[in-house]
C-alpha cells in the first residue's frame, strides 16, 4: 500500500498545536524526532513508555506513527475515536491522508475540499498539492491545474507540484506547456525518476525523439546504478 498524500504529513513534531492547557509530556519531543527520522520501532517503544497516553498530543502522535508504519486502518480508528482531534487542523489533514491511503478517495477529497478554505490551512502548499492529485484522479484536470498552480505560488521550489502540473496540462492536451512544467520540475529535482519518465512521454508526444531518447538513457543508466 502506498500513501499518495504522505507528503501532507510533514513531521510529527510540526503539528502539535492543540490549545491544551496542559503541556504534552516531556518525552514526546524525542518520540517525534524518532518518527521523523524513520526509526519507527524505537518510536513505538518510546511512545508506549510515556506517562500521559491520554494527552491529545500523545494520541495524535500515536496516529501519526501508525500512519507512518502503514497501519492506515489503525490510524484512522485513532483519529475518529478521539473527539479532541476532530476539529484539530493537523488531525484533519492526517485523516484526509489516511483516507486516501485506504483508497477512500471521495472522503479524502471532501475533507481536503473543506480544509483548503480554513484559515491556516489554505496557505499550506501540500494541501493544495494533495487535493490536486485527487482531482486529477476524477479527471477534473482544470480544477487540479488550479490547485497545482496555487501550491507552486506558495512554494516555488515544489518539484512534485510542478510535475503534477505537467500531468494536468498533458491531459488537457497542452503539451508544450506540459513540457515546460516538467522541465522546471527536472531542474528542481534532477534525480527524480518519475519526472524523467514523464519527460519521455511528453517529448514523444511532442515529436521530439532525440530528447525522449536522452531521457530514456538517463533512466536506464539510473536503473543500472540502483542495482
Amino acid at each position, binding site marked *: *500500500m*502506498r*500513501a*499518495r498524500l504522505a507528503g501532507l504529513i510533514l513531521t510529527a513534531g510540526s503539528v502539535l498545536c492543540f490549545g491544551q492547557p496542559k503541556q504534552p509530556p516531556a518525552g514526546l519531543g524525542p518520540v517525534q524526532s524518532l518518527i521523523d527520522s524513520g526509526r519507527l*520501532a524505537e518510536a513505538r517503544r518510546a511512545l508506549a513508555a510515556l506517562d500521559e497516553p491520554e494527552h491529545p498530543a500523545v494520541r495524535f502522535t500515536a496516529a501519526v506513527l501508525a500512519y507512518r508504519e*502503514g*497501519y*492506515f*486502518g*489503525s490510524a*484512522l*480508528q485513532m483519529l475518529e475515536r478521539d473527539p479532541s482531534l476532530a476539529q484539530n487542523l493537523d488531525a484533519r489533514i492526517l485523516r484526509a491522508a489516511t483516507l*486516501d*491511503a*485506504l*483508497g*477512500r*478517495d*471521495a472522503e479524502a477529497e471532501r475533507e481536503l475540499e473543506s480544509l483548503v478554505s480554513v484559515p491556516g490551512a489554505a496557505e499550506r502548499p501540500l494541501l493544495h498539492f494533495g487535493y490536486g492529485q485527487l482531482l*486529477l*484522479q*476524477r*479527471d477534473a484536470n482544470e480544477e487540479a491545474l488550479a490547485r497545482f498552480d496555487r501550491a507552486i505560488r506558495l512554494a516555488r521550489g515544489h518539484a512534485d507540484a510542478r*510535475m503534477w502540473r505537467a*500531468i494536468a496540462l*498533458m*491531459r488537457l492536451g497542452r503539451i508544450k506547456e506540459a513540457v515546460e512544467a516538467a522541465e522546471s520540475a527536472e531542474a528542481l529535482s534532477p534525480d*527524480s*525518476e*518519475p*519526472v*524523467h*519518465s*514523464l519527460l*519521455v*512521454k511528453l517529448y*514523444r*508526444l511532442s*515529436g521530439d525523439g532525440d530528447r*525522449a531518447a536522452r531521457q*530514456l538513457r538517463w*533512466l536506464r543508466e539510473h536503473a543500472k546504478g540502483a542495482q
Partner: protein
Amino acid sequence: MRFGALVALPLAAWAQIQFEDVTAKSGIGFQLRNGAAGRLHQVELMPGGAAAFDFDNDGCADLFFTNGASLPSLRKTDASFHNRLYRGHCDLTFTDVTTKAGLAGEGYAMAAATGDYDNDGFADLFVAGVHRNALYRNRGDGTFEDVTRKAGLAPADARGDWSISAGWFDYDRDGRLDLFVSNYVRWDPAREVPCGPPEHRIYCHPKWYEPQSHRLFRNRGDGTFADISAAAGIKASPGKGMGVAFADADGDGWPDVFVANDSVPNQLFRNRKGQFEEVALEAGVAYPDSGKAIAGMGCDFRDFDNDGRPDLAITGMVNDAFLAFRNLGERFLFEDFTAQSGLARATVHLTGWSMGLFDFDNDGWKDLFTANAHFPRLERQLGAAPELSNTVFRGTGRGRFEPGPALPRRAFYRGTAFADFDRDGRVDAVVTALNAPVAVLRNVSRSEAHWLAIRLKGKASNRQGLGAQIKVDGGGSLYNHATTSVGYASSSEAIVRFGLGRHAGPVRVEVRWPSGSVQQLGEVKIDRVAEVAEP
C-alpha cells in the same frame, strides 16, 4: 466509424450486468488450497489459476483449476491439493474427470495456459508452478499425457523458476504456438524472510526478493521446445512477472507481449520479426503517469475503445487503482487513461487479481470483470477485512467504465476463466478463491442484444487461430483478437466474441490470420458460434 451509434439503445436496456452465483448446483466441489500453515510463505499468496477450454471438442466449455501443495515440501500430499479438470455439460454444470484425464498433477501449481501446440485439433494444457512446470498433451480421448520432460520444458535444476502465469502465442508466425512464461521472484522456502513486527507477522513486500527473467520457448514442431529467452531478447529484462497478455499493439502483424509486474515497472516486449525489445518506458506503459510502479497483477490486452488498436487494462493493489492504457496508435505510444476511463475513482479502494475485458451485456463495448481480494493479514493497515467481492465495470463507450453492483460473496479471489458455458451468447465467469469454494457465475444480464462468436480453424496459421485479428462490420466496426491468455494465472476460451447491440442483421467479418492472409466474409449470420476456417 465506431460502433457507438449502432448500439445506442436506451440506457435502461443496458442498465446492469448481472451474474447469478450458481456454484452450489454446478457440481464443482473444488477449493483452491494454498497450504498455509502459519509460516507466511510468499507462495501462499499467489495461487491459483483457472482455465476455460473445450478439451473434448463437444462444444461445451470445460474447466481446469490449478492447486497448491503442502509447505514447505511443495508436494501434493493428499487429494485436496490435486489440480482438477471438470467436463462441462453446456448448462453450467460440470463433472470431475481429473482422474481419468490424468491431470491431478504434482507440485505447487500456479497457472494454467491452454493452446493446441501440436495442431492436432485438441487443446493442450501448460501448468506453471513453483520450481516446476508441466506440459500435458491432449490425446483427444479424454486423457492427457505429461510430456514435460520429452518436450524439454523441465527445469534444469531443482530450484527452478517460480512461474506465475503463462500463455501461448505464435511469436514467429510459423503456424505453431510458442510458450511465454511469466516468472516472479527467486524464492526458497528455507530462506523465508520474516516481515512485520514479531507480534503480527505479515507477508513480505516483493522488494525483499530478487526478480527473475521470463522465458520464451519456441515450438520446434516435433513436440519439443527450445528455450530462446536469451536469443530473442527476453532474458535481458528480468521482472517480477504476474499476468501476461499478447496483442499486435503496433499493427505490424507480429504479436507483442505485455507483462504486468509486481511493484517494478511493467514490461512491453515489442516483437520485431521474432526479436523482442523491451519498450514499456518508451510506450508509456511501464508506469502510470505518476511514474511510480504499481503492484501489477492481472492484465488484458484488448481494444476497449473500438478504435482498432489493442489497449491495456491492469489490476493492482489498493491505492494503485486498476490501470487503463489507451493505445494512441502513433509512434507506438499509450496514454494513461485511468482517470478518464473512470477506473481511477472506481477501483482505488480495491486490490484486484485476475480480470478480463469481455462484452458481458453484448452492447458493443467491452466491460471489465475483476477478481478481488486484499492481501491477508493486513487488517491493521486496511481497517477492514481483506476479503472482497468481485466487481464488474460496464463499458459505456470510448474506453469509459462505470462500476456495477458488487457480486455475491466476499473471499480471497484469484483466478478467472471466462467462457459462454451455457451457450446463451453471454460470457460467464468462474473465479477461484484461496481456501474457499470457487464462484461459478452465470451471466444473467437482461438484454435483447445480438451477438456473434467466432471459432477459428487455422491452416497455415496455428490451428486455433490464436493471434488472429477480427473486425466485424454491421454499420459500425468492432475489433477483437483470438487469445486465451487473459487475466492472472488463467486462460479463457479461444472463441472470439462480439456484442452487436441491436444490430439484428448479418455482419461482415474480416479475419487477419497470423500467417498474414486476410479473409473477408460477407453476410455472416449472427446470434451463433460461427466456424471460420483459414482458406
